[in-house]
């Protein structure tokens, strides 16, 4: 090996070392210290360092974070804007479905530009946790909410609660004909009267729960039967509520809050939520968030999650979105039922459900949805 190539290789190694140093969280300070020859610190550098220190004291966080939001823009944009205004953090948001973003994050791995994943369902969060892409959150953040609404290993934390429910058109549906569990919807009397959103993340979460609780075979049978009954497909939950209100749909499988929002806007709309007596059709689940290990701005990412637990954010979730607040001391909106009166399956293990997500998607597809 000649001298030239040795020099080239060592130069490359040095460059590599420098890059690696910069990528690490502690590396930055070290790299800055080494940047000039020892003893030669310019005035400008001193001023910059002092300014940086002062800025850190005023607000602990800054810079930019990218949020992958599986929650709709109309539901969270205000909260995000308030966070940005209060902290001075620049926030970029990529909106898509929770399951799609979970899949995207799994595919991106370490190159992900995202700092925070905000999901409408625990199963999508579980998929990201399963891939080992989340940092464990600090105890005090996890302790903000009840134990049922956090990941058992601490990778993500709930930010609000929602329940699966049926939206029914009260002009065409009587209470007596409704079943006690989701399996009861497989009945001739519901032929052509059902609506669902097969690609909705909460629907997939419900099917994952059903596989966990009742076994693959029973779920596959149910899905095929529902498809055979004839159903109306919707891209998401809100249009089902609108269709029920317009009299176009009798029964839609949704999350509870769109019905309440519609009723809050026009109380005489002839629709209502029906909460089932038990099983996964009555599942209460958290929407939540986690900080990605690949984040370059973890302090701001964590600050955002803490902000979601603030009283103002929790009040937004319950009074504007009509979800269950999760932080103690925030009063649930009056339209909400008592969360303890709902019959969600006890002790659901969210990370166990996440293992079924792929199977759930496969069963939904195989049933012909």
């Amino acid at each position: 090996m000649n001298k030239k190539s040795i020099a080239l290789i060592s130069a490359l190694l040095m460059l590599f070392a420098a890059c690696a140093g910069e990528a690490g969280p502690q590396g930055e300070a070290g790299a800055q210290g080494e940047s000039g020859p020892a003893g030669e610190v310019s005035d400008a550098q001193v001023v910059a360092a002092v300014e940086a220190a002062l800025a850190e004291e005023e607000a602990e966080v800054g810079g930019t974070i990218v949020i992958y939001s599986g929650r709709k823009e109309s539901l969270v944009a205000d909260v995000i804007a308030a966070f940005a205004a209060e902290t001075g953090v620049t926030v970029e948001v990529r909106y898509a479905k929770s399951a799609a973003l979970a899949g995207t994050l799994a595919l991106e791995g370490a190159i992900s530009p995202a700092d925070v994943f905000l999901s409408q369902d625990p199963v999508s969060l579980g998929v990201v946790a399963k891939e080992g892409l989340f940092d464990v959150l600090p105890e005090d953040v996890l302790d903000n909410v009840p134990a049922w609404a956090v990941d058992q290993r601490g990778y993500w934390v709930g930010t609000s609660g929602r329940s699966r429910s049926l939206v029914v058109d009260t002009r065409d549906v009587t209470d007596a004909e409704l079943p006690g569990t989701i399996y009861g919807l497989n009945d001739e009397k519901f032929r052509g009267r059902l609506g669902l959103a097969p690609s909705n993340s909460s629907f997939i979460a419900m099917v994952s729960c059903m596989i966990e609780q009742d076994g693959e075979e029973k779920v596959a049978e149910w899905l095929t039967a529902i498809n055979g009954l004839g159903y109306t497909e919707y891209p998401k939950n809100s249009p089902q509520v609108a269709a029920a209100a317009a009299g176009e749909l009798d029964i839609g499988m949704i999350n509870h809050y769109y019905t309440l929002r519609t009723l809050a806007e026009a109380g005489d709309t002839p629709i209502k939520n029906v909460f089932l007596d038990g099983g996964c059709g009555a599942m209460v689940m958290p929407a939540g968030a986690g900080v990605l290990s690949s984040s370059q701005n973890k302090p701001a990412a964590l600050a955002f999650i803490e902000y979601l637990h603030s009283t103002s954010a929790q009040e937004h979730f319950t009074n504007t979105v009509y979800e269950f607040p999760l932080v103690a001391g925030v009063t649930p909106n009056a339209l909400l039922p008592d969360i303890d009166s709902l019959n969600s399956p006890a002790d659901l293990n969210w990370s166990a459900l996440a293992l079924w997500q792929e199977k759930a998607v496969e069963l939904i597809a195989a049933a012909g949805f």
Partner: protein
Amino acid sequence: MKIPKGLLFSNLLILIAFLMPVFYMIWRFFTFSRSFESFFESWNVYGLLFNTISMFFAVVFSSVLIGLLISIFLVRFDISGSKILFTLCTLPLVIPSYIGALTYVSAFSPKGIFVQIFSFTGLSEINGIDGFIGSWIVLTLFTYPYVLLICSSALRNLDSTVEEAARSLGVNRFRIYTSVVIPRLKKPIIYSGLLVGLYVISDFGAVSLMRYSTITKAIYTYYEFSLMGDPIIFYSGLLIFLALIISFIQRSSDVSRAATVSGTPRVPAKVELTFRNKIFVYLFLITVIFFGLILPITVLSYWLIRGISLGNDVRAVFGGVVGSFTASIATSFLAILISMPIVIMVSQYKSRFSSFLEKIILALYGLPHLAVGVSILFITIKIFPSIYQSFFALVISYLIVFLPQAVGGGQASMEQVKTSYIEASSGLGKSKIETFRTITFPLIYRGLLAGGALVFLSTMKELPQTLLLRPTGFNTMAVDVWSFASEGLFTQAAFSAFILLAISAIPTYILSTRNLSR
């Protein structure tokens, strides 16, 4: 003539870069973690294939029927106002299928506009138009103009000697069409029919809004479910495969060689129609124009006015307008730039490589946008993470499918640049660059600009690639229309849809007629 090294090199580079989505798919197909059969067993592949292919045949059949009938009526019969009728019949071409579907879905939903208008008759609910029927209607209405443009131009150039001979032998007028005229139009019919077919199997917006399960809808559904590699790649690969077959058959029935005659074609005298038949023809034309043009525009106007009266914020569409223009300008500029070496090579240095290059570039036109988008998405994540979710990657993806339009524009004008001009110039001692600057470029820039304008408009309307690849915070009018319409928020979708149509209507019409009837 020997090909300059620089030209060869740059074209090879373009070729490799542009074939990457296809290469990537092939590579993924060979490295699936599961057996090929398992897809067919557990992923409803047969059902989706059946739906896609039956839609293909249904729309091709109806589009050819409508397009051919209008061509014959307007070219061969004495219809007053035929010019304006022709223009009106081609205009549905400017309506992207997802906007067309939006208008039909919202007008004919079970309690939609149609029911509201006719509620005085006691009508309270209809079976909404969706699924197979809805997709069929919408795709037919917005693709038959391709058949009309291509077949009417072929019909104009068709020599009438054979027809007149048949007529003098006493063959009745109907038989003349079925056994003389239409068989001689076989090539343009197949060509335009398959063009429609390519559009159908690649279409994503209309079938999604109509909730009809085709392969494209499955791809997008899996994208939304989660990007669990295998199924989404499998369906995208399957779709590319289907498109390449159709594209190959289409290319082999080259329309320019169809129905040619030696010398100038004899133009037959326009046939006078009886009053009764004339009424029938007018009724037919007006029905088509009503459903293809008047109804969609009226429905959009209705939503627009309702949106304004509800006080929707017009400024909400601003970001989409800026995004659409930025993307379209960047893409068309780059398309012109990249098409130049290809055009020069194909027209000036005829060789086996150049005809191969031409074939490949033309085949790119048929690639389904959604499948290309999926491929670029995976390539950028797995191989080029530095451009992942970047504006640059989005533009590359647009260029792959729209470059053929720029090449087509350049090629048409390049035919004016005779090899002898170049030889004369180099004989006079001019350098290659100077020859290009003083001779080639002035002759081809108009054609390049026309091609670029076509790319501009296509980019403006593009939907599926934008949905998959757009950078965080980047928005286009097409995305706005789509996301509002898929949520049923028609008043909000109408703003962007209207601007999009207004911008593309006139130039699309001019360009598509010129381009397709060439």
